[in-house]
């Protein structure tokens, strides 16, 4: 056996991957090779160091947080599944290829007629009627569909045939009272999906202005605001969402979300806002549980902002003195 093969055996032994036969061969070699013995000792030192080094462990709290966030993400994923994805997947219920082909052909014809109708329909809006479920006093009018994201795929020079793709976008003008639940739900969806941060900011501001402090929050709106506060890419949107959430009575979801912000938010002023918001109910003994106290303790010990450490310490100590 070549010497570098013994080096490989050493590494395999270090990782407990050596079988008995090779173990014996290695042991025999080590008795006679000072270089390999030194290598073995060096690996042992490395192991000793790594074992002593702190490492991130998966605590129950971390796992719970991850699971909670996953549940929210899955709910959003479910609501985002487009009609077309579900339509395509529903074709799988047809077992035979022939049935799928026939159904696919019929469906394509129907879709083609529909597109033609929409494209060549006379101008003038009309009510969406039942298109937005749960509409009470709000009304929505559909405008003329527009072509968007036009992309030419192929056109041979001099040929009459052309191939392209495009999106059919139907703008909807919706009017109603901001207290209307249906209006708020549409806005909550926009808060999570609109790509323009300015639009998201306006949406959360509008929702925030309408939330009454004593009203039981709509679950979807609360979830959307929590998601925006925790995960929106724009700090202004996250701050507005935090302001809106502060108007709700504190329940477990909101408490967990606030503690998440306290621990994970990169913007220090938001973390300060959370401490300021929690201070009153904590000192009034309305919200004193181990999660909140641990959150404050962690902030006072390891936040990278000195002022936040001091604020968290002040609240924590004042609670402990009571």
């Amino acid at each position: 056996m070549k010497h570098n093969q013994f080096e490989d055996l050493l590494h395999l032994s270090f990782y407990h991957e050596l079988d008995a036969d090779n173990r014996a061969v290695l042991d025999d070699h080590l008795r006679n090779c000072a270089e390999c013995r030194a290598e073995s000792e060096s690996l042992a030192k490395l192991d000793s160091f790594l074992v002593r080094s702190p490492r991130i462990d998966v605590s129950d709290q971390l796992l719970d947080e991850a699971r909670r966030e996953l549940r929210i993400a899955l709910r959003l994923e479910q609501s985002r599944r487009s009609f077309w994805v579900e339509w395509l997947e529903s074709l799988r219920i047809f077992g035979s290829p022939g049935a799928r082909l026939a159904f696919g052909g019929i469906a394509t014809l129907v879709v083609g007629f529909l597109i033609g109708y929409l494209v060549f329909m006379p101008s003038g809006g009309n009510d969406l009627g039942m298109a937005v479920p749960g509409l009470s006093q709000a009304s929505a009018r559909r405008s003329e569909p527009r072509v968007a994201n036009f992309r030419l795929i192929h056109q041979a020079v001099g040929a009459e045939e052309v191939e392209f793709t495009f999106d059919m976008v139907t703008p909807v003008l919706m009017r109603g009272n901001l207290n209307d639940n249906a209006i708020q739900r549409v806005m909550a969806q926009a808060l999570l999906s609109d790509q323009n941060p300015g639009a998201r900011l306006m949406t959360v501001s509008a929702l925030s202005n309408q939330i009454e402090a004593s009203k039981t929050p709509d679950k979807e709106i609360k979830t959307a605001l929590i998601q925006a506060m925790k995960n929106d890419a724009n700090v202004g949107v996250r701050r507005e969402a935090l302001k809106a959430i502060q108007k709700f009575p504190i329940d477990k979801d909101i408490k967990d979300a606030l503690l998440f912000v306290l621990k994970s938010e990169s913007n220090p002023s938001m973390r300060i806002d959370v401490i300021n918001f929690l201070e009153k109910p904590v000192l009034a003994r309305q919200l004193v549980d181990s999660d909140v106290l641990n959150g404050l303790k962690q902030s006072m010990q390891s936040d990278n902002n000195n002022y936040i450490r001091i604020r968290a310490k002040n609240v924590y100590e004042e609670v402990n003195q009571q």
Partner: protein
Amino acid sequence: MSLHQDEHTSETMIDLDLIQKARGGDMGAFEQLVFRYDKQVLSIAARYVQSSEDAKDIYQEVFLRVYRSLPKFQLRSQFSTWLFRITTNVCLTHRTRRKRHLHTSLSQDSEDEHGASVTDALTEMRTADRDAERTDMALHVSQAMESLSAKQKMVFTLKYYEDYKIREIAEMMGLAEGTVKRYLFAATKKVRTSLQDLL
């Protein structure tokens, strides 16, 4: 059939049952399927990226991919193999979303910070020293790991920290066992060289 094989088969059957139900839209079944493996996924992610926040991002991405791809899962391989392959792929392509100040949890070691006695002050100093040392060790290990290529880091994490067999790592990463060994030995040498002065 041995006891181990019996257990293996029954675990597979449980997975298959939950997969079928989840495919039918049963979110409870999907959740049960997730809970059977999610701690391992989170552990791999946390050890790989050395950050609990990034680990949660990876965790979420992995299970969203599983959710979206479950209808296409062929049942030719074990669900766990497929899941951990997704996990390693997501880890390898993950980019840290937000820069985090590296810190270890000090709350287990530090207790009450009050007290004016000399004993308390000394204890506090020793605790602070110990915590500073541990933070420093963690920083050096993190830097050593960052010196590895993504695949070396993944193999090292899965072998040293998660104690998977080389054969299992090869399956998870879609590599030959010889390639895994090559990555592992190179990673071990690099980590040792990085930490040379501290050993």
